[in-house]
């Protein structure tokens, strides 16, 4: 029951926001905030149950799987839901002040809630086609959010984003069709049971198609092309949500499909994923090094970090998955932190061009500290959270004997440090030659920044918080048969 609530609540909030419309700005905020708060409570409840090794299922309309559509929450899904709702909450809180000049447009709150609905649905569903539908819900809500400001660049970014992700969705749908024709079912657990017995054939191609569909969501090179356009074009809280969580939904889907549905060994896909992951790491980091638009810079950094996660997923060992999941968690925190911090800077000086910034350390010490925390965390410098997840990824590479990807990954983490320090320098240090636009940055924007910075620091100092979670999750991901048994529940012998 709780699972369907997790989807219905944001959906209701989205619809309610449409109904409220222009009549009350405050009411719209209140609805969004309240619903995400409830989501956080429910998600942590689900998380608490599933982390103990349990899997919660819910059959929609009481139709037993594999015929009916069901919702499944194992610990990975629960973690994702928790992340989505927490970061969603912080972004909504942030939007109150950040979007004040645009408050007249009621669609914003509603679309935000719709995209949260789509994301939560994607990670909770146990049905492949249902996953497609929820992904589309997420996309369709994200398109207008990307083009929200309606300028030329925003429209261009939005158009490219729509075209590319539609093509990817088409691939995904084709993949679903192939899976269906090969197995005769759409239930992921059921597919897993069947592919466990026989692989190959159409399923190989289906896997490739599904991965391309999800690879575009999570911006793996060369499918990353939309991200550096779309993420900067969106309003900053949305960028934080897109970079922090939405790309992770794609990665979640990849984990589900590779590890749960097909089984890592079924198709020799590991090498492909490692190669793509390494390419993603290099291209993201290298291009981030030469950017001057601050949000585009962060977008490229996201791509690079997605590469790390992808690389870890391609290794296929338990420590690899552990590193990947930990990095998903950490990167969600770090990147949202960075986007929200940068949002404060943009709010205050009204430009995204880093070459026009400088010397903000004195005026914005808190933001500078937050940016430094986020940047160093992403660069993998202890005692911040990114260090431990990167360490796990390195160790996983090492243990599996992938020394060249390891060397590249380590070298790029130096590059990561270089570009974050460069950005820090360009924004906060040196001479100040800009007029600050407004007064103080409002508290509702600072609170999310502080919360996320503390979270980054806390996980870094006490890594056991994350490590214990990810260990359980990785165990659960690899225990395929348990998933199948729990979901199908003896419906199929």
């Amino acid at each position, binding site marked *: 029951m709780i699972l369907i609530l997790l989807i219905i609540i944001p959906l209701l909030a989205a619809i309610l926001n449409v109904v409220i419309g222009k009549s009350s700005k405050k009411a719209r905020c209140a609805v969004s905030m309240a619903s995400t708060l409830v989501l956080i409570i429910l998600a942590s409840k689900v998380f608490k149950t599933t982390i103990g090794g349990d899997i919660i299922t819910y059959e929609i309309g009481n139709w037993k799987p594999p015929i009916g559509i069901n919702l499944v929450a194992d610990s990975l899904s629960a973690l994702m839901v928790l992340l989505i709702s927490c970061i969603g909450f912080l972004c909504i809180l942030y939007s109150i002040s950040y979007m004040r000049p645009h408050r007249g447009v009621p669609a914003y709150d509603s679309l935000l809630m719709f995209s949260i609905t789509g994301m939560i649905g994607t990670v909770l569903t146990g049905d492949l086609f249902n996953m497609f539908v929820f992904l589309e819900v997420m996309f369709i809500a994200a398109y207008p959010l990307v083009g929200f400001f309606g300028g030329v660049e925003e429209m261009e970014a939005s158009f490219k984003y729509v*075209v590319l992700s539609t093509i990817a969705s088409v691939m995904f749908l084709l993949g679903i069709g192939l899976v269906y024709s090969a197995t005769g079912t759409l239930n992921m657990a059921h597919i897993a049971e069947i592919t466990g017995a026989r692989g190959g054939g159409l399923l190989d191609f289906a896997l490739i198609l599904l991965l391309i569909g999800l690879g575009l969501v999570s911006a793996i090179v060369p499918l990353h092309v939309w991200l550096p356009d779309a993420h900067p074009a969106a309003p900053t809280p949305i960028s934080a949500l897109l970079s922090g969580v939405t790309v992770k939904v794609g990665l979640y889907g990849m984990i589900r499909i590779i590890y749960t549905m097909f089984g890592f060994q079924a198709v020799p896909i590991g090498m492909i994923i490692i190669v793509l992951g390494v390419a993603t790491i290099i291209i993201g980091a290298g291009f981030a090094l030469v950017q001057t638009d601050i949000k585009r810079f962060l977008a490229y950094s996201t791509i690079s970090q997605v590469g790390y996660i992808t690389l870890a997923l391609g290794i296929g060992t338990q420590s690899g998955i552990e590193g990947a999941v930990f990095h998903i968690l950490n990167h969600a925190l770090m990147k949202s932190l960075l986007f929200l911090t940068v949002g404060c800077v943009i709010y205050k000086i009204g430009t995204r061009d880093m070459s026009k910034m400088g010397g903000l350390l004195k005026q914005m010490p808190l933001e500078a500290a937050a940016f430094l925390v986020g940047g160093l965390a992403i660069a993998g410098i*202890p005692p911040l959270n990114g260090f431990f997840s990167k360490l796990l990824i390195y160790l996983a590479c090492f243990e599996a004997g992938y020394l060249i990807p390891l060397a590249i990954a380590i070298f790029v983490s130096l590059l990561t440090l270089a570009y974050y320090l460069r950005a820090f320098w360009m924004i906060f240090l040196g001479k100040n030659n800009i007029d600050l636009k407004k007064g103080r940055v409002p508290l509702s924007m600072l609170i999310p920044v502080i919360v996320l910075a503390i979270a980054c620091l806390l996980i870094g100092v006490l890594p056991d918080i994350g490590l214990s979670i990810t260990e359980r999750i990785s165990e659960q991901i690899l225990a395929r048969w348990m998933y199948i048994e729990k979901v199908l529940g003896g419906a199929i012998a």
Partner: protein
Amino acid sequence: MEVLVHHYAPLVAIFLPILSSFFIPIIGRFHSKLGAYFATIILLITMGTSVMLLPIVLDCECLHLIYPWAEGINLQFEIYADALSVCMLLLTSFLCLLAAVYSIHYMAQKEGGARYYSLFLLLSGSMMGVFLSGNLLQFFMFLELTTISCFLLILHYQTTAALKSAYKYFIMIHLGALCLLTAIGTIYVNVGELSMASLGKLLSNVNGEWLTAAMALTFVGFGIESAVVPLHVWLPDAHSNAPCPVSAILSGLMVKIGIYGLIRFFYGIYGFPYAWGSTIIILGALTAFIGVICALVQTDAKRLIAYHTVSQLGYMIMAFGTGTTLGLAACLTHLANHTFFKALLFFVVGAVIYKTGTKDMDRLGGLRKYMPVTFICGLVASMAIAGIPPLNGFFSKGMTTQAVFEVSPVMSSIAIIVGVMTLLSFTKLLYMIFWREKSLETDKRMSMKRRIPASMKVPMIALATCCVGFGLFAHQYLEKIISPIINGLNLEGELYLPSIFMPSPLTSLSYVGIVFAGVVWLKRQRIIAIMSHKPFSALHHCFKEELGIDAAYSRLAKSVVSVFERGRSIMSGHLRDYVAYLAALLFVLFLYIALLRGFQWTF
């Protein structure tokens, strides 16, 4: 009481400064100097704890405390305190305290005081953490913490030069740290253990390529940290552009972390690789030599001293490379002595800057009349670093030369030559700043400034006393402090201390050096005239440009950036290109699968 000290003193030493660093921005709001006093008190307490720990560990008793930390990767928070750690701890807390006192007035007129003291405490706490770490990963983490805080301290003035050097510092040190991390990872993957205490035994009879790789990576990592040529390029920039008290800490302590790490890793964990000994000695000699010739041509006082740090580190590396007990003792003694005189030199230059506002030696002169205390301190420090008896530098340098002589006589002659050049270079420093009659420029500037306050004089005098004291009581020092450290590292052997009057060839050679320097001093006008001729000026230019090493690094960095700059064209902005990438990926992956399955599959 005993138990209390055992259990809590190390934790206090690490976490008191780190945690209180968060309160300084709050405290600093009430009164500008409050932060400074608070930091001083905290460091005083820290020093107290390390003094309390000293008698315990000097009886060759190790403290080994283990706390649960990250069970997920089998990592405990371990504190391992033997004589070496605690002596480093004491040195750190002593110098940090002096630097904090020195900063009270030195940093007073500049803004960002709260940030400065906060980072200062963070730096001292994390250095303590480095020295007390009983676990490789923990060691690494504290090392990175020192790097972050140093980075922020170096860029404190936010001039372009300071920013550039801080950037370079962080990137290069992080490169070293990554090498170290890779080495640690190699050990972890192969042995599954990270505790220093047990690794020594575990690795003692292990052999393998991975161990060699780990050792090489460790050496490179600490080599960058301790500025082994050609990995030293960050040091002169960073040390000369930081605020003076920070330079003192950087030169006095931060680079020593590299030496400490080398000793810990190579003696405590891997076992010393005697096959590499001569290479390490040659690298050390090269470092000492290049450091000193670059120092000779500097006109920026801080940069000159910074190059001498490189040079003196070369001595330590040489002594370390011998692998003998005497060499290790020499390395440790020089490490401590260098901390005293180098910090003192930076304090002296800081006082000069405080008074005149410049560190450019061409614009200075005749200051000995106006700041006699500073001058005397500078004289003591210069004599100490140049190895003039009976100051402390003489003994450690003599020990180093002797230790190297026993292994490789040729290299020991380089050590002596470098000693002579050091003496020359400091003669130049003292002459240009304090001695020569050139006062017009400085007089005008001086009227703007106040007297050197006591808070700056006291640290200088304290350090000068140390320089003299550790020279006069060198025997006792060696017996009481250095021997227990050596014993703690499980090394046995005779320790040799050069006596001023001992008729050894080495000591007499040092006297030749002193005489040579004296001749140069007397004929200085003539030599300056000769030096401005063409072949010498070309050489001069070459040394000033650091023999192109620095330029090579920046070319490398630029080429990396330009590769990506050019690569940006793949993000052309054309939608069709993007769709083509997608289609190409699909095609390639399909082809891959088809080839893999040999075009045979069942529908």
